[in-house]
């Protein structure tokens, strides 16, 4: 036997694909900063109940008060604590975006997988439907759906999910079409692996990277879109707040103070930057990984 080449003595401390990608990602300073910023924002939203000392919906006499120790970001035009409202707004906006993107991901990926792997007439039907949705601007689709079903959080999430879905269908279908032709898929076929196991064990793990990147970029789009819908009063209903509804409300008193639009606007901007930077960093790490 020709054993010499096979001794694992000089094996570097490599791990699984995910570990390797994380090791590479960690070296990207901007992406790491973005990740930390995002964790802080999400953490603030999750811990809104603990961090907010004032009831976000409690109306006081201190209308449009400047920041004080009691109200660290001041109050809004009917005297509600802005800091609390922003925290609860983050919680709401992120939750709504997350649900919409999760739905779009699950449904979009399933459709894309089936479309790409099965092919044929089913593929044509699914793709033409997707194209039809894609023909309209995403926000318009979402607004149309909310317009038909009536304003409200659930309908807004549904509208956003439908608007974001085609991108996932296209992405996954393209990836599946490319991976189907990979020799390792053919090798697995010859190894006797069943179709559904090929999809589960070989196709899914290999398209996971691009899908995660897409989820992150879509999250930033969803935050903006949810903001827009709330701004127009199509999503969250008062007195509850989302970042977009805060922005909309702040807009009506913009002549007196810009503080009310500055704070929620900054949070949305920073969160979008964070999502996109993380997506960029991850994309870099993934492509470096596939190069060997």
């Amino acid at each position, binding site marked *: 036997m020709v054993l010499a080449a*096979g001794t694992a003595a000089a094996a570097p401390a490599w791990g699984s*694909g995910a570990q390797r990608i994380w090791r590479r990602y960690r070296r990207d300073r901007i992406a790491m900063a973005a990740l930390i910023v995002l964790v802080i924002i999400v953490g603030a939203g999750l811990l809104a109940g603990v961090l907010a000392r004032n009831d976000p919906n409690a109306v006081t006499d201190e209308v449009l008060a400047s920041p004080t120790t009691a109200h660290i970001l001041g109050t809004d035009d009917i005297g509600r604590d802005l800091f609390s409202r922003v925290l609860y707004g983050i919680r709401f906006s992120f939750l709504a975006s997350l649900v919409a993107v999760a739905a779009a991901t699950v449904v979009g990926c399933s459709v894309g997988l089936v479309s790409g792997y099965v092919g044929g007439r089913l593929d044509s039907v699914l793709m033409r439907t997707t194209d039809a949705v894609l023909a309209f601007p995403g926000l318009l689709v979402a607004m149309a759906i909310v317009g038909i079903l009536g304003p409200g959080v659930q309908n807004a999430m549904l509208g956003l999910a439908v608007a974001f879905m085609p991108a996932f269908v296209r992405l996954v279908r393209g990836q599946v079409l490319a991976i189907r032709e990979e020799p*390792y898929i053919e*090798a697995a076929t*010859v190894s006797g692996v069943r179709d559904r196991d090929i999809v589960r064990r070989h196709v899914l793990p290999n398209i996971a990277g691009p899908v995660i990147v897409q989820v992150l970029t879509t999250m930033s789009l969803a935050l903006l879109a949810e903001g827009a819908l709330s701004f127009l009063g199509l999503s969250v209903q008062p007195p509850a707040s989302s970042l977009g509804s805060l922005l909309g409300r702040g807009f009506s008193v913009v002549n007196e103070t810009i503080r009310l639009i500055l704070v929620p606007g900054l949070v949305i901007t920073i969160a979008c930057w964070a999502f996109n930077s993380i997506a960029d960093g991850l994309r870099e790490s993934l492509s470096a990984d596939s190069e060997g």
Partner: protein
Amino acid sequence: MSAQVDVDVNAPLLHVDGLALDLHRRHDTVRLVDDVGFSMAAGESTAVVGESGSGKTLTALAVLGLLPPRIRIARGSVVFRGRDLAAAGSRELRALRRSQISAIFQDPQSSLNPAFSVGNQLVETIRCSHHDMSRRAALDHAADLLDRVGIPTPRQRLGYYPHQLSGGMAQRAMIALAIATRPALLVADEPTTALDVTVQAQILDLLASLREEHGMSLLIISHDLDVVSRIADRLVVVYAGQVVERGETRAVLRAPAHPYTQALLDAQPAHGRKGTRLRVIPGSVPPPSAMPGGCRFASRCDFAQPQCAVTRVELLTATTSGREVRCVRHADLALLGAGGVGAARGEGAGNGAAPRAALLRVTDLVKRYPSGASAISRGRGEHVAVDAVSFSVEPGETLGLVGESGAGKSTVGRLILGLTEATSGSVVFDGVAADGPNRRRPRELRRRIQVVFQNPYATLDPMMAVGRTIAEPLQAYEGLDRGACRQRVDELLAKVGLDPSFARRYPGELSGGQRQRVAIARALAPRPDLIVCDEPVSSLDVSTQAQVINVLEELQRDEGLAYLFIGHDLALVFHISHRVAVMRQGRIVEIGSAEQVYGSPTHPYTKALLASRPSSAMKQVLDATPIF
């Protein structure tokens, strides 16, 4: 042109001295090339030979002034006509490349710009150095150049885009582009590696004749000693970033002074006799970050002594041959004579397999594709990839299928496996009809035919640990549980010469040869009777190639496996096959025992194929008048 560049025409054309290249990473630097040096006179051709990772391509890039940004010259110099390129600015380097130094690379298709016609690219290059030339005159000149590199109907081809040219034509066009400025030095990095054998021979001849006509010097970078022997005056053998041997080509090939050179020669199938094991260079090149202080080849050398690994060795001049060699023991080893190193070879499997009932019988197999992928041309014509192919494979036999790319060899393999559907004809495996797509075939039939593909980088799922990959067929065909699987996986890894610890590793951490062994272990797992090997070693280095071939041969002996071995390397296919079928344009033009086909070919194509392989040129060199 040389007005812009300060060059001394009387100095040696190119002098590379003690070149060391460092890769600068964020926290450290790694030395990739440590001590490479050689000198070239005008009109001379020199070859830098080594395996992948030896630093040969980096050396070429340093000569061209095209090193990647994070790789810098740490020591030594590259002097072109008296001008040190290490000290030259990018402006000066560009001027040099415009007028004095040209290059061609391995893959001609990707070196040409796909968006411009060949004529346009030539005219652009010509007018770079002849600013006052009219477009019409430049086009005339371009056609003249295409004619000179042997492209028929050059006028018409000027309008062709790179994708309309075959590999050989594209490389010719690339050469035309490179000689357009009448360079003094042409750097050719693996110029024929991506081409078919007959085309290889033509390109090498072309380079040799251009060199004579223009008095141009040629710096060839290659991993293939055969190719190099055909064209180079002088040989520079590099290993792990150092020159290990340097001398006149004929002398080096006749009597290699360094054990590594000898081992490289022995690993080539043309030199190992048929039915014998190919010589294997044990171990692998040490990683650049952990280079031993002493001789870098010591850990793989048959003649290493304890002091070899610790004392740094400089390039020494051997008194007997005037050759330079980096080995402290070269004087002792020379006493062993040329045959000494490779003498102790094991005995291989016998070839005298008695004829038995066929395991696989292929009759009148045909595969047609609609020609032209676009919808417009659909139905207009058909491309016949496989045309009425018939053959049989006996149990325990290796049938070699050779031919150039596009001959339909791989398609035959895919048809047998059911990865592509046949247009007509039949495949019968052990009395059972093997038709339809693989996934629709009976499980037992699927189990008995397995496959090893060409590209070790794509054949393993990058996201799946090696052990799980090998376990897949075990679970699918034998329904083994996890514990039983683990044991079988360890056994299979041992069979292909890998340590059980490999089961936990991922393909990205493995070398090409190791990956290909894993692919073999996977094919072996369901205990098949036939393995279709589709160019299993053509993307591996010579020494790794020998390891994998030996594994395949041992497995055949131990398990009675039959192989359908698809390849384009004639020497290699001859080495491993009992019988050989030669394919051309979808047809089998000749089939017979390996000795018959290679010893007395009857079909003109087989003769042409055999005549064009570089090894026959090498043989001529070696058979020429003795040097000593």
